[in-house]
C-alpha cells in the first residue's frame, strides 16, 4: 500500500523529518505516536501533499506510484484521505455538495459514471446516522460554526462516504470528549477492511483503546525510534515519551 523509504523533509532550512522508514500493507492499522514537535504532523502533511515542505531525500511509494510527485487532489482521487487535525471552515460551500463533488471526482478518476442523486442521498443519510450527526449539518457550510467534536465527526463522515484506501488521521482524538471519541472510533472501526489501511497520528494513547492498531511506531526528533505491537503504546503511556527520547539520546 505505502512504502516510505529514508524520507527527509525540511521546512525552509530546518530539517524536520530525518530518515523515516515505514511499510504499510493493505488492511493494517499503524499508530504513529510521539511528543509535540517530533514531526508527526509534518509526516501526515507531506503524505497528503500540503505545500511548504521540501523533501530533501528519500521516497514515498503509494500503490506502486511515486506519491510525492502527485498533486494533492490526485492523491485524494487515488484513495488517500487525510482527516485533518484542524478541519478548515469553508463558508459558502455546503457540506453535502462538497461530498458529492469529491465522490464524483473520485468516480470520474476511476472511469465510473457520476453517482445517482437518490443513491447518494441514501448513502449520506445512512453514514450520518452511523456517526450520530444531525442531518442539518449536511446543508450547512463546510465546518462553519461546527464545534470541535462536530468537525472531527464531519471528517469521519467524509471518509465513510469517499471510502479511501489509505486513511491518514492527524490527531483525530485531540479535542474530543469521551462520547465523541467513542462515536468517531466506531465510525473508523466500521470502515476497517482487508483492503483499507490506516495511519493514526496521535499524541495520546487513549484513542488506541478504541481503535486497536496492528503496529505502533514512536517518532522522536524526526525519526522512528521504536516500533512494536499495541503493547508499545501502553508502555509509552506508563513511562512517558522521555523514555524513548532518553533511549535515543543514549544510542
Amino acid at each position, binding site marked *: 500500500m505505502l512504502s516510505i523509504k529514508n524520507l527527509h523533509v525540511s521546512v525552509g532550512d530546518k530539517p524536520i523529518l530525518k530518515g523515516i522508514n515505514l511499510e504499510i500493507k493493505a488492511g493494517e492499522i499503524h499508530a504513529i505516536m510521539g511528543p509535540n514537535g517530533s514531526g508527526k504532523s509534518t509526516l501526515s502533511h507531506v503524505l*497528503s*501533499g*500540503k*505545500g511548504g515542505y521540501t523533501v530533501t531525500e528519500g521516497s514515498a511509494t503509494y500503490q506502486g506510484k511515486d506519491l510525492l510527485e502527485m*498533486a*494533492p*487532489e490526485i*492523491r*485524494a*482521487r487515488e484513495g488517500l*484521505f*487525510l482527516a*485533518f487535525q484542524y*478541519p*478548515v*471552515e*469553508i*463558508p*459558502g*460551500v*455546503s457540506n453535502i*455538495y*462538497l461530498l*458529492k*463533488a*469529491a465522490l464524483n*471526482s*473520485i468516480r470520474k*478518476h476511476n472511469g465510473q459514471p457520476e453517482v445517482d442523486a437518490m443513491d447518494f442521498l441514501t448513502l449520506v443519510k445512512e453514514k450520518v446516522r452511523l456517526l450520530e450527526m444531525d442531518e442539518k449539518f449536511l446543508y450547512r*457550510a463546510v465546518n462553519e460554526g461546527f464545534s470541535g467534536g462536530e468537525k472531527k465527526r464531519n471528517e469521519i463522515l*467524509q471518509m465513510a462516504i*469517499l471510502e479511501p484506501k489509505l486513511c491518514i488521521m492527524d490527531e483525530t482524538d485531540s479535542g474530543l470528549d469521551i462520547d465523541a471519541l467513542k462515536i468517531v472510533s466506531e465510525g473508523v472501526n466500521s470502515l476497517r477492511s482487508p483492503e483499507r489501511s490506516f495511519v493514526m497520528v496521535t499524541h495520546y494513547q487513549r484513542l488506541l483503546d478504541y481503535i486497536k492498531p496492528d503496529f505502533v511506531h514512536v517518532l522522536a526528533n524526526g525519526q522512528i525510534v521504536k516500533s512494536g505491537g499495541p503493547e508499545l503504546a501502553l508502555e509509552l503511556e506508563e513511562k512517558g515519551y522521555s523514555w524513548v527520547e532518553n533511549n535515543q539520546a543514549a544510542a
Partner: protein
Amino acid sequence: MNTATASRYAAEYPTIASALPGQTLPWLKALRAEALIAFSAHGFPSPREEEWRYTNVSGIEKKLFAPSVDLTGSDVDADWLKSYRLEDAWVLVLVNGHFSAELSVLDGLPEAVSVMSMADALAKQPDKVEKYLGAAADQSEHSFIAFNTAWFTDGLFVHVPAKLVLDKPIQLLHIVTGSDAMATTRNIIIADEMAEAKVIETYVGIDNAYLTSAVTEVFVGQNADVTLYKMQSESDKAYHFGGSYIKQARDARFTHHNFAFGGLLARSDIHADLDHASECELNGLYLGVKRQHIDNHTRINHLKPYAISRELYKGVLDDRARGVFQGRVIVAIDAQKTDSQMNNRNLLLSDDAEADTKPQLEIYADDVKCGHGVTVGQLDEKSIFYLQSRCVDEETARNMLTFAFANEMVDKIKIRSLHDKVLEQVLARFPQEGVNKEWL
C-alpha cells in the same frame, strides 16, 4: 473645488429647465434654483473632501453629459431588457431619465398604493411630494445631491399606506441608452405605519459612456418594514453616482442590499437615520475587474436608544480594480443601548487590485455595544489545500472560494427571481472554470 465644469452645466440649465417636471410648483422651482446655486458654487466633489478622498471624479469633467428632455430616441431592445426585468414584480421603467409607460407593468396594484413616476406624482400629489422631497437627502451633504435636485427629470414614487403589506416587489428599472447621455432621477419611497414593501432598483445601460445620478429617499414609518435592493450593473464605461437616504421611525425596520458590479466609476452613499429601537441592516457586495473604481459610503446615525444596526460589505477586486469602503456609525449622546456591528471584508485576486477601507465609529453615548472589523486579503491557502485534499483541483478550489465569498451576500436575497439574476451577474464577472452552481 472645480467650478469650471459646474458653470458649463449651469450654462446649459436654461435649455432643459422648462422641460423638467413640476416647474409650475413654486416650492420645487425654488428648491431647484437653490440647488443649482449650491452646485454652481461648489462644483463636483473633490478628493480634498474627507468623504471623497479615495474617489476622484474628475473623469466626468472631461465631458459634458447631456440630459434628454423626453423619450425620443430611447428605443430599448426587448430581449436585452428581459435579462434585467423581474417577472414577478410591478416594474416601473425609466429610459434616459424618463418614464416609459409602454415598458412598465403597473397593473393590479392595490388601490390604496401609489406606484408612479415622479413626474406623475408631482402632477397628481404635489403636496405629498413636497413633504418628502429633500427631507432625507440633505443637499448640503455633497454637491451630487444638489446636482440631482436641480436636474432630475423623473423617478419613482411609491407610497404604501398604513398596515398594507405588498405581496409583490416593486422594481425600478433604470436604463440609459444614449452615448454621453445623462440620466438624473429622484425617487421617493414612503411606507406608512406598519406597512411592508420590497423595492428593487436596477441600474443598467447600453455599452456607452454616460452619467447616472440617482437619489432615493426612503421613509420607513413606525413599525414598518422596507427592504431595498440596489442592483448596479451599469455599462463598464459609465459613471454612476447614487445615494439612498433613509429615515426610520420608531421600531421601523430597514434592510438594504447593495450590489455594485458595473460602471467605470461608481459611487453609492447609503445614509440611514435610526429612531428608538429601529433596526437597520446594510449589506453590500462590490465586484471590480479591469480598471473599475467602485466606492460605497455608508452612514448609520443612531439618534435614539435601543436601535440595532448590522452591516456587512464584501468586495472582490481583480485586475487593476479599486474598491473603496467608508462606513461611519454615529451614536448620539441619547442613543443608549445601541447595538451596532460593522464589517468590511475584501478579497484581492490580483497584485494590482486595491482596497481602501475606512470604518469609523463615533460614539457619544456611554452604554452601547459597538464593534467593527475589517479584512483585506487573498484566498486562504489552508482552505485551498483542504479542498484539494477533498479531490478538488487547485484552480477550481480558488474559483469556488471566490464565488463562495461573494455568494454569502447573494444568498441573503429573499426574492428568488432577483437572486438568480444577481447570481448570473456574479458568475459572469469572474473565471468560473470548474465551478458548479450547485456548489454555491
